[in-house]
């Protein structure tokens, strides 16, 4: 890859992550859900960074249909822990594209740091994490000459800095 395309790729990825962060901060659940691919995996490990989620408890280990259930529950307005909603502001930084994988090298391994400030009825909480993503180029909805491509999330792993500790309720989208 030339450095020009490297820079373009990083710009695309950065724009995508900022958009995801905005949807989450604003509780725009449907827009956030639409960022996922059908083979989605949303994973927040507990008690370490790499415990086997197939045998050990994770804080979240959602496939696509459970992501949809989580969103439907938020939409009821009776998800008490998000009614009233947490007030959120997050900073996403240290974004890096680590490599390409998948068929046709279409998947990007991306990492970023995030720091989320939450204010809710209980008080103020800070959540710090490294987020590992698999982002995928899919055919775009644009009407350009080649149709264009867009990024989607196939995997998001949120590695909380304090995932060894007892955590307060984490019911917003992180």
């Amino acid at each position, binding site marked *: 890859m030339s450095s020009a395309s490297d820079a373009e790729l990083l710009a695309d990825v950065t724009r995508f992550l900022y958009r995801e962060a905005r949807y989450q901060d604003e509780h725009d659940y449907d827009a956030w859900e639409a960022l996922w691919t059908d083979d989605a995996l949303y994973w927040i490990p507990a008690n370490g960074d790499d415990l086997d989620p197939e045998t050990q408890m994770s*804080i979240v280990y959602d496939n696509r249909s459970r992501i949809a259930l989580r969103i*439907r529950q938020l939409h009821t307005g009776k998800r008490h822990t998000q009614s009233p909603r947490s007030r959120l502001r997050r900073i996403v930084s240290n974004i890096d594209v680590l490599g390409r994988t998948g068929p046709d090298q279409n998947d990007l391994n991306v990492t970023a740091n995030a720091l989320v400030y939450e204010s809710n009825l209980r008080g103020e909480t800070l959540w710090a994490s490294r987020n590992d993503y698999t982002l995928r180029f899919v055919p775009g909805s644009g009407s350009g000459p080649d149709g264009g491509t867009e990024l989607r999330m196939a995997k998001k792993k949120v590695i909380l800095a304090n995932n060894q500790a007892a*955590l307060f309720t984490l019911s917003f989208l992180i």
Partner: protein
Amino acid sequence: MAAALNVLAPTWSRLVQRDRVDGSVYTDPAIFRAELEKIWYRGWVYVGHSSEVPKPNDFVMKAIGPQSVLMTRDKDGQIHLLLNRCPHRGNQVCLEDRGNTTSFVCSYHGWNFRNNGELRGTPFPAGYQGVDKSQLGLGKVARVETYKGFVFGSFAAPGSGPTLLEHLGAAAEAIDRLVQFSPEGEVEVTAGFLKHRTKANWKFIVDNETDGYHPTFVHASIFSTAKSGIGALYNNDSTAVSRYLGNGHSENDLRPEFRRLDKPLGWFGTSEDRLPEYVAKMKVAYGEEKARQILVDGTPHTMIFPNLFIAEIQLFVLQPLAADETVQHVTAIQFKGAPDLNRRMRQQTMGSVGPAGLLLADDTEMYERNQRGVQQRDPETLFLGRGLHRERTDENGFTIGDNTDEVPSRGMWSHYRALMEAT
């Protein structure tokens, strides 16, 4: 401390009455300290499960309230509960969550302890001439007893107070019923714990575990979206019952509903054809008829006072840290010899409990609202009179009520008062 207890002692008849309790029992730091002495550091408390230390020299870090307790298995297979405090100058001795070792070495001056707590050696030993090493081992939880793999500890002196079996009483049957779901008759605690911290008093959580009144309201969002049948167990027409089992223990007995529906594995939202291997093993282990009855009845929903909640597919272990702070440790129950069932138990558990759980995050929101609300001045009490007029005695002599009635709470509080009034 002693003075504070004496001041409190005469007031329990005012603080805890048959159908109401005073809000201060959830908020007063002096009451919390008294509870540590009279409940957590005296009676039987659930600590861990023997399957968490399967091999000789395994250890795992556990807790009794704010006390950090090392559960070890020594080379001969015996389980010990050791306090994580160096008898030299108070340093924390073990900093790992789990592992396998024959000895623990204190990082401060190198004292070395066997995994049964004995002091093995001290560096530069000439400095301890004439000192009795046998008096300088790690502190121990004096009484350790195990029931079907469930390890309980009590700080009471050996020989004083009830035995574990006396303490469990009728609640032992919940453990009996639970382990039957393994074709080998054993539960395993091997899936790791989620640790959910909440700014609320531990008794709000105990109260809630067998409160059949709240699910309709607190969990409506997930019952409706997941099209779950659980909600119907807790509605006004449910034939399920709430039961006080004595010694602070209570249950929601859902069997009347499941027997009415008569669907094996219906309690788990699935059916026999989805788990053919498991069902086949159960039939071999228990015979066709008994296996079917077990699978129709479902697992227990039982609160074992003060800190073990058998929540059908999960175990919750409550750890009070302060009057207004508690950690809920929760894991998926795993049944020995049932890998296909266990996988589903883990999946459902991860979805429903822990900090992001579709169910428990809403319960926990209520605990915190309770904690803030109860600090308001008026009324000063919580009213626990639901179903008092229709309490009845079942064929075994236990007090029962409708599933939405506050029979479990009233029973728990009467036991609590007796413990707090004891000298």
